[in-house]
């Protein structure tokens, strides 16, 4: 394009303009495309295509050898009306989420709060509290199933020593096995705790000082200052907790393998998908299960999102602007 007088003065001719606008950076399109290409390739072949494909497969009967056979809503009908294992897995999953998500949050707040107390030396404790969350899930689970073993694990001996007459059989007892898994989860609280710790350290000390001058008790300043300011973190861990609990697999799989969980007390939703897909080779049915999982997690997340207005306080909102 040739430069005429008009195009040359165009930037100046705008009303009120006194200088040419700052030269905008030329967008290096090729560079951007090249940089994004690994991710683009990944999202197409490992996310988008598989999602569409598994959505289609959820309406088919597919055993990996023959090609998929359209069966309409049969898989979903079977899931809700014929498959007892589905209900068992769903119940177990809801049970463990309902107990372990709140428990984990409380324990994370508690451990983080305790860490903010001492003036010196808290980093050693922080290291110790964080350490178990690094342990490989398989190793941690194996260790727990062994040390909680009623016959030769030392934990029950310790419990007896502190006066508990008949300690539970933990992983060996279908009524207690989930509690074993919950304890295993609480042991690895470290990563959640660190987020809460960061949140607690962000609370301006002036707020606590003001509360103390007003004569607030320790509990009051926790309840009316710390807790409201922690709600964004609580909200975040609830959402990730719900998403995570529907994918809870490794610990349950390893533990039930170690103790022969005949009554399926540690049979969770993700376990059901795994067994349907890779033991029974019912790929269509497993895809349907996976899509129901997605819908359930989306619904739960939406419900939590809907309620957040009522209980989540964002410090950048009205209060601290």
């Amino acid at each position: 394009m040739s430069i005429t007088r008009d195009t040359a003065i165009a930037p100046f001719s705008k009303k009120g303009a006194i200088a040419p606008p700052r030269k905008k950076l030329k967008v290096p399109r090729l560079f951007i495309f090249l940089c994004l290409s690994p991710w683009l390739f990944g999202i197409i072949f490992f996310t988008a295509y598989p999602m569409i494909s598994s959505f289609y497969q959820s309406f088919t009967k597919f055993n990996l050898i023959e090609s998929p056979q359209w069966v309409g809503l049969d898989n979903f009908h079977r899931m809700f009306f014929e498959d007892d294992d589905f209900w068992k897995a769903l119940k177990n999953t809801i049970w463990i989420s309902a107990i372990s998500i709140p428990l984990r949050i409380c324990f994370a707040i508690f451990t983080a709060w305790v860490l903010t107390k001492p003036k010196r030396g808290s980093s050693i404790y922080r290291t110790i509290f964080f350490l178990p969350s690094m342990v490989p899930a398989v190793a941690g689970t194996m260790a727990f199933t062994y040390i909680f073993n009623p016959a030769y694990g030392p934990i029950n001996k310790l419990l007896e020593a502190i006066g508990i007459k008949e300690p539970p059989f933990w992983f060996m007892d279908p009524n207690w096995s989930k509690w074993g898994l919950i304890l295993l989860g609480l042991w690895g609280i470290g990563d959640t705790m660190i987020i809460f710790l960061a949140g607690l350290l962000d609370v301006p000390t002036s707020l606590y000082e003001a509360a103390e001058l007003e004569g607030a008790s320790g509990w009051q300043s926790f309840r009316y200052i710390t807790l409201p300011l922690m709600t964004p973190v609580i909200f975040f861990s609830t959402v990730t907790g719900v998403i995570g609990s529907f994918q809870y697999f490794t610990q349950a799989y390893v533990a039930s393998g170690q103790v022969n969980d005949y009554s399926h007390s540690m049979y969770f939703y993700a376990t059901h998908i795994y067994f349907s897909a890779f033991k029974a080779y019912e790929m269509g049915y497993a895809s349907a299960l996976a899509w129901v999982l997605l819908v359930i997690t989306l619904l739960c997340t939406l419900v939590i999102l809907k309620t957040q207005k009522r209980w989540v306080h964002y410090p950048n909102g009205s209060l601290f602007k």
Partner: protein
Amino acid sequence: MSTYTPEQLVEINAQSRKARRAKKWNNFLHMVGNHSLLIALSAIFILPLYLVVVISLMSKGQAETRSLWPHPFVWHNYIEVFTAVPFLKWTLNTLFVSIMGTIGTVVSSVPPAYVLSRLQWKGRQTTFLIILSTMMLPGQVTMIPVYIIFSRLHWIPSFLPLIVPSFFASAFSIFLLRQFFTSIPDEISDAARIDGCNEFKLMMRIIVPLAKPAISAIALFAFLGSWNDFFGPLLYIVENEDLWTLGIGLNAFQGIHHVDTNMMMTASALFMAPVIIIFFFSQKVFIEGVTLTGVKG
């Protein structure tokens, strides 16, 4: 002016000294209280690890007696574990998968994070939102078709399904890096651009060195993610014993050979050890990484 008699002043002085002393005593009590609570909690967190190490040093007979201290110390367990099961091979397999996975993640996640944080372009926000939502997507939804792709490629059983996907960027790593890159002042980039630096050089020579902490964080998370992974190997390599990783091997420990419980704890201890050692040397990186994104791995 003062209405106090000397006796009263002495009395007041003594009282305030008493109060100060009481406050000091109070502070001391608080400190003792706090630290004993912290020590008790630490003991609970350490207990399982302690028991694993202690049992790993017991003889077979003693490991089944619920005792809390090895008598005698059977250091030999740590040699025997390498002959009882192919422990060395499992370790090398795990190491190989983890290192390749780490390289893949770092190489493929830095460029997308760079363009998402340091350049202005149309569709940037949308792209970022897509990346965030894929982080939340349950893996089960894509698992089966991905498995079918790999089986059509005849990559099962092999290490390829565990390594190749990491070369196509991980949403979590992009997210973490982007958060860090955004915090680097724009003036640095502007100055380099004025000096005629092209974008690629700018990324590699200026931003990447500045973002070393974030890059080491994603490298560590990627390494530990592969090291601790169980589900991936369970799908893709379980059929070939030569390819087993530590997680798979350890889980199958009892089933394949008859191995005693003390040995099992020895192997568990060895499986945990590298992670714990890495953690002690790189705590700060970890904790900052978790704090920056709110998630681990």
